Every structure is written in structure tokens, then in C-alpha cells.
């Protein structure tokens, strides 16, 4: 009996499944930890660009600040205001964090690491991005507060604007690779050019959409602090606020990983791509993560009608043109062959 169980456990498909679980857990932990330390990175980099020091007291370079903050936020009173819709109020931050984590499952990190590579991977990502807005919207609505409601409304308006061109901006890549599978897209780039060159306009539009997905400056309208106090999470505190907060950073890590995979050849580097693939992936991701912070340090916030106008009048036509031209080039190359 025991021997049979051991034999079954040692059988290749079960081992593979166990290995996948281990991989998934490691990646999840890595994701959460890097998201948490991204808070430190953001504070230090912002400080660097703002002529000040930032958190530098706890541990070397202030790295322990994250731990201190975690302890603080875990032990804070988990306060739910009496006037909120309780179920939705609790659900919203859960959604915010878990959906962003789910998205990272699609990112191919190295040739052998990655949680999943479904055939319709990109479509799955679009679905997640579409769902993620519910976190903000429900958070804003369930708070039963005017500032939160305005934040939620803005978020909805913003989503309608960027989701359309986000989907279209990636279709050029799908056409070139002939697949929705993220791993196939990475491999297709390694066989030819990185997508950022042939799909440059796609990349530009995707960058804007990626910022919008994470609600980061300059698309932080739902939580525009100088206008709506804290926007959709005005009524949140303690760990529920913490989940919105960490969810935002998880989103940044996810979107940076996606950008690396979709436009910058994944783990491919100038040398040793097969020996240190993770290092190349991490370097590229870190670069994009830092550029999110740079944007926050550099840019003011547009008005949301201006943001919507830019989305519909500039980004959408640009991504449509990109799609048509990519299609034409592929057809032309195909007929020439």
C-alpha cells in the first residue's frame, strides 16, 4: 500500500505536478516579497529624485523598513466603518490583490520557470485586467462615502477608455507570433527581433495602458489625493488598505514582467541567456518597475476627461493603425515567400 503510494508519487506526471506546485509557491512568494520591497524601492528612489533621503534607518539602507511597516499594518485595528456594505467592502481589497497575483501566473520567467502557459494566455490577462477594475469600483461603491464613490466612478470611466486600446495594442504581437501563448511569444522574439522594434507603436500604447491598469501616476485619477482625498480607498485602513496598497505594487511587478516578456524578449540577454536567464529577466523587470517610479516623480496628473480624450482620440487610432499595418506586412511577407 505504502509502496504503491510512493510509486505513484514518484511517477513522472505526479512529480511534474508537484514540481509545478513548488514552482508556483516560490514564484508567488517571490512576487509578494518583491512587491513589498518595491515599496522601499519607490520611497528611496522618489527620495533620490526629490533631493531627500527617504527611509534609511531600519536595517542596511533602510531595507528593514518594509518589515517594520508590515508589523505595523498587521497589528492595526481592522476597522470596518458602520456605514459600509460589509461583504463588498471586504471583498474589494481581496480582489485587488489576488487578481494582480493571478496575472503573474502567466509570466514566463525563464525557459523552465513560470506558473502556467495556457494557449490563450493573453486573453486570460485581458480578462484579469477587466476584472481588476471591479476591486476599485466595488471598493468605491461599498464605502458609502462620496469621495470613494467619485474615485470608483473615475476608475470605471478610465477602464472603459484604456481596456479597448490595451487589447488592440497587443494584437500586433499576437499576429507576429501567431499565438496567444506568452511562452510562444517570447520564443518567437528570440528567434527574430524583440517586439519593441517592429511593434514600437504597440509598445507605446501598451505602456500607457499598463500604467492605467495599475492606477499609477499619471493615471492615478481614482485615488487623486489632491482632489479626492484618497479616492476609492478613503474609508479603508489597516490590512484591508494594505491589500489595496500591496496589490498596486504586485500590479507593477506583474505589468513589468509582462512588458519584459511581450516586448523585450523575456529572459534573453546579450550573453549567457541560457546560463543566467533569470538575471536578465529580473534586470529588465526592475528597469520597468523603476520607470513607474520615475513617472510618478516627474509628472503631474491630467484631468480625467483629458485622459479619456487621449485614450479615444490618440491611443485607439494608433493601436488600430498598428494592427492594420502589422497585418499588411505579414500578408505581404507571406505572399512574397
Amino acid at each position, binding site marked *: 500500500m505504502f509502496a504503491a503510494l510512493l510509486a505513484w508519487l514518484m511517477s513522472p506526471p505526479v512529480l511534474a505536478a508537484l514540481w509545478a506546485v513548488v514552482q508556483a509557491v516560490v514564484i508567488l512568494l517571490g512576487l509578494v516579497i518583491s512587491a513589498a520591497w518595491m515599496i522601499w524601492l519607490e520611497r528611496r528612489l*522618489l527620495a533620490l*529624485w*526629490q*533631493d*531627500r533621503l527617504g527611509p534609511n534607518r531600519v536595517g542596511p539602507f533602510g531595507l528593514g523598513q518594509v518589515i517594520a511597516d508590515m508589523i505595523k499594518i498587521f497589528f492595526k485595528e481592522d476597522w470596518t466603518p458602520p456605514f459600509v456594505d460589509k461583504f463588498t467592502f471586504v471583498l474589494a481589497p481581496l480582489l485587488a490583490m489576488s487578481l494582480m497575483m493571478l496575472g503573474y501566473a502567466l509570466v514566463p520567467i525563464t525557459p523552465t520557470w513560470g506558473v502556467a502557459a495556457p494557449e490563450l494566455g493573453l486573453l486570460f490577462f485581458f480578462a484579469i485586467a477587466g476584472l481588476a477594475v471591479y476591486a476599485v469600483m466595488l471598493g468605491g461603491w461599498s464605502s458609502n462615502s*462620496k*469621495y470613494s464613490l*467619485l474615485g470608483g*466612478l*473615475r476608475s470605471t470611466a478610465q477602464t472603459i477608455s484604456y481596456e479597448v486600446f490595451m487589447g488592440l495594442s497587443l494584437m500586433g504581437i499576437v499576429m507576429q507570433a501567431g499565438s496567444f501563448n506568452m511562452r510562444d511569444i517570447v520564443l518567437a522574439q528570440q528567434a527574430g527581433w524583440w517586439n519593441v522594434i517592429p511593434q514600437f507603436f504597440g509598445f507605446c500604447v501598451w505602456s500607457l495602458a499598463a500604467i492605467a491598469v495599475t492606477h499609477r*501616476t*499619471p493615471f*492615478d485619477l481614482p485615488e*487623486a*489625493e*489632491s*482632489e*479626492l*482625498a484618497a479616492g476609492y480607498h478613503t474609508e479603508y485602513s489597516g490590512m484591508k488598505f494594505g491589500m489595496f496598497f500591496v496589490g498596486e505594487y504586485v500590479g507593477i511587478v506583474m505589468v513589468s514582467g509582462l512588458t519584459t516578456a511581450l516586448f523585450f524578449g523575456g529572459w534573453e540577454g546579450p550573453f549567457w541567456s541560457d546560463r543566467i536567464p533569470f538575471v536578465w529577466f529580473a534586470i529588465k523587470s526592475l528597469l520597468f518597475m523603476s520607470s513607474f517610479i520615475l513617472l*510618478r*516623480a*516627474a*509628472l*503631474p*496628473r*491630467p*484631468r*480625467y*476627461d*483629458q485622459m479619456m480624450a487621449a485614450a479615444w482620440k490618440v491611443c485607439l487610432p494608433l493601436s488600430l493603425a498598428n494592427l492594420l499595418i502589422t497585418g499588411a506586412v505579414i500578408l505581404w511577407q507571406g505572399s512574397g515567400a
Partner: protein
Amino acid sequence: MADGTVPGLPDSASAVIALCGADAVTVESTVDRVPTLWVPVARIVEVLRLLRLLRTGVAQPYLMLYDLTAVDERLRKYRDGLPAADFTVVYHLLSVDRDIATRGQGDIRIKVALRGDFPSLPTVSGIYPNANWYEREVWDLFGIGFEGHPHLRRILLPPTWTGHPLRKDYPARATEFDPFHLDALRQDQEQEALRFIPEDWGMKRGTDDHDFMFLNLGPNHPSAHGAFRIVLQLDGEEVVDCVPDIGYHHRGAEKMGERQSWHSYIPYTDRIDYLGGVMNNLPYVLALEKLAGIQVPERVKTIRVMLVEFFRITSHLLFYGTFAQDLGAMSPVFYMFVDRQKAYDVIEAITGFRMHPAWFRIGGVAQDLPRGWDRKVREFLEWMPKRLDGYRKAALENAILKARCKGVAVYDTANAMDWGVTGPGLRATGCNYDLRKARPYSGYEQFDFEVPVFHNGDVYDRALAREEEIRQSLRIIQQCLDNMPSGPYKADHPLTCPPPKERTLRDIDTLIPHFLGVSWGPVMPAGETSQMVEATKGINSYYLMSDHSTASYRTRIRTPSFTHLQQIPSVVRGQMVPDLIAHVASIDFVMADVDR
């Protein structure tokens, strides 16, 4: 005179006398030489309408109600030749065109004598829109009623307050009151009294097919710049209407003036516009020097100009940073605080304090400039211009920021006049009116600088105007540095404070006034005086009445921010919430300056 003019008075005053009849009008001579006419209360609306419109052959009407205030005359001793009055309401009108044409003769003061304990008179808010808040303030603080006023309710004090504090029978000291208690019940009552009821303000809660949202922005909000509350009537994110609510920062500065000595009130002035530092001392001491007849030495004038320009720079830098921050750019403010610190280093080296030096004195300044002051000033002058160039690229020329500001919250010169707007907000509408040029004080006529004027009247132009003013202030400071006159830092006059001490141990005639001047403070001659200055945020003035005593009989502080906030609804109706935030940022106000 044959043509009806009165010698020494402008044509407009003659028109008023012609309207009311020579017997009904009393001409008062004041120390500040502002033409002052007492008119009968029954004619006040006609008189102001005449001056506002001036249809009858007199050009350059008084478009701006510069100030409106009141005086409790019941305890005043020195008022020979003035009409009998228990209360006086004072209207101070200003004509910018006339002021520029006549080099500083563009204002007129109209007074109305009122009898009785709780008198009332007709409102003039139909003629001058900004009389609305001024009349509410007078009602709040004096208990004088204004018939026909649309919303005559308390403005600076809580709605639950009893009594009218600026009346002479109202105590001025905390020891004259019972101790303050706030229990849960009273707290609830105070909260309930603050509830906004749209119907009270003539607002509707909705139309047939949709409701409006009433959003309470403030008194605690990241962009409210202090304890400022503004209730918005929203249709989506469009501001249909709004009601600014002030008074959360009121601390009775005018009442304090009546119990502090002339000298010991100076530190209170620092805290009126708390970003303006000695800029607040300036109109106060200038007004008093007029009253006392003190001529200050050239060195004093130049030191004062240099320091107030330093404070103009620090105030504008704070505006610049918070303005960018309100538009979502988080970094500029940190850089500007570094620059402000550099400026404060210089200010601290000279005065010993950073934000509130209280360093000007009646008849001079507290001390001479320290050794090496010129080196510190020069360092700052070398540091600042490059930084300003960088900010222009990083902030003002940013495309997103421009899109947020251009064409947003626009008002024209006529609107600015209606609401009493002065300072950069007025000059951004194309009106070239800067008191430092129009009626120079403290030696500004000797300086070479430009007045930045812009023409679109939008948020962006108001920001540009302030940015350019920083550069001009640097020019003025450079000239102070290059041409600082030598000489004493205080006038030789018995009413300066502290009084001159050099000869006290040699003759008794100096010792006694010195002793009295130090222990009681100076006794100012009876009279009325005022001084306007181009402060950091607009025109600030002190209107002081002396009853030949050691303290002021009435201290009126006219601040620019008060009227600027009143203007908000007329500018932001129909705009969006982010535009309102941009406009509020572009006003550059501090609530201490509004509420006093």
C-alpha cells in the same frame, strides 16, 4: 467754488456732496490723506451707486469695493467735528484707473454714522458683489444689520456663537469668560450647526430627472490649504455651484489690537499672512509712522524692502510647490522647500527668526544688519536664478500641467474688480496695477523692476505671474545689496519703540519719555491712518484709529485672501472638480490671512 468742486478733494467727492447736499456731508481730514466723507445713512446706496457708475460727467469710476468695515464709536473720546455716532460703517472704494492716472489718489472713504445699540442700514451687495462677505463680517463682529442682504449670517464665528466680539462692551480677555467646556452633547450641537442645508443657500437638491451630489470639501482636505471648507454642488464631476465657508482659523486678531500696545502688536501682524513674515509688519509700521509723523532713514527703508522681497520669494516658492502638487506633480515642492530654506538662512542670519521675525519697529528695524549679511544675500542671489530656470522646464512647461491650467478658471479684469481681487490674480487679467509702482512706499520708487502682467486671466497666467515676480524680487534684492545706504537703523523720534536711549542718563527730559515709552508703550496722537502694501498675495492694509492712547482704538486688517475666496463660486461654476482644485491652488491664500 463756482464749479462745485471742493479744494483738496477729488471731483468724485464733489459729486457726492452735490448729490447729498453740502449740509448733509461732513468732510473728515485723516492722517493718511484718503478723502473721507460722512454721508447720511439714507443716501448710502445712492452714493455708492454714483461712485460705482459715475454717470454724471465724472470719469474713472470706483470699480472696486476695497474694504468695508465698522467701528464701535461709543467709547471714542477724540472725535471733534465728526457727526454723532454709536457705530460707523466705513466703505473704502478704489479706482485703479484713477490711481494710476493720479499716482496714488485713486481711493475714497465713505462713512455712515449709525445711532442705537443694534443699528441697521441697507445692503450694498447689489452694487458691489464683494460687499456680501464684508457685510456678513460686520454683522458677525459688530451686530450691525444690513437690510436686504441675501444671506446675513455669521461668517467668521461659529453659527452657535452669542454676542458680537468687536463691540466695545464685549470682553477681550480670556479671564473675563467662563472656562470653555466641550462635552459630547455640545459637540453634537456644534456639528449639527455646521450641517450644510442647500435650501438655505437657494440651491436645489436635484432636477426632475437627476439628483445633485453635495460634496463637503474641507475643512480638512489635502488641497484646502488650511482649514477651509467649500461645499460643492456636483453634477457628476461638474461643479454646478459652491459655497465657501470660512472662519475655522479666526483668532480675533483685530480685537487683540485693541488691548496690545502699539509696539507689542507687531508680532501678531506676522501671523496674519503667516507666509509673509515681516511683509505684515510693513503696512502696520508705515501706517503708525504716518500717524506719529516719523520720517525713517534711508537705510531703514532699504533694509525693509530687502526683507519683504525675501518674504515675497519664500511665499511665492511655497505657492509654486504646492500649486504643482495640487496638480499631481509631487516632486517640485521638495526642491522649492530647499530654496525656501536657503532664503530663511539669510532671513535668520539678519533677524534671528525664520518665519515670524516681528523685526520691524515703529520708526525703524530691531537691529542693524549683522556683519557679513552681504555675503549671505549674494550667495542666495547666485543660487536662485538657475533653480528657477530648472523649475520652469520641469513644472511650468510640462504639457500635462499646461493642459490642466490653460483656459481653466478664467476671469477678466471686470470680474476681478467686482470681487476686490488684487495682486498677481489681478495682474494675470492684463491689469497693470502694482502698488509698488502705483503708489510707491518705503522707497520703492528708487528701484528698477518690472511688473509682470499677463492677459489670459487663467490658472496658468496666475502661476506665471508669480514665477516672474520671484525673478523681479531677486532684482530688487540685488539693488538693495549693491546700494545699501549707510546710517542709523532707527529714526530719532520719541515715539519710536523702543525709544532712543543714548541720552537718557544725561537729561531727565529724555529719561521720562523713555521710561514711559518702554513701560506703557508709545502714546500715538489721536487720528486715523492706513497704509496699503503690495503683499505676497495681493493688497494688504492696516486701518488704524488712535484715540490718543497706548493701544489702538480700532485695528482693521484688510487682507487679500478674504476677497479672493469669496470670488471662487463666480469663477468655477460649470468647471470640473480638478479645475476647482487648480483654481484654489492658483489663488495662493492662507487661511490665517482670510480669517484673521
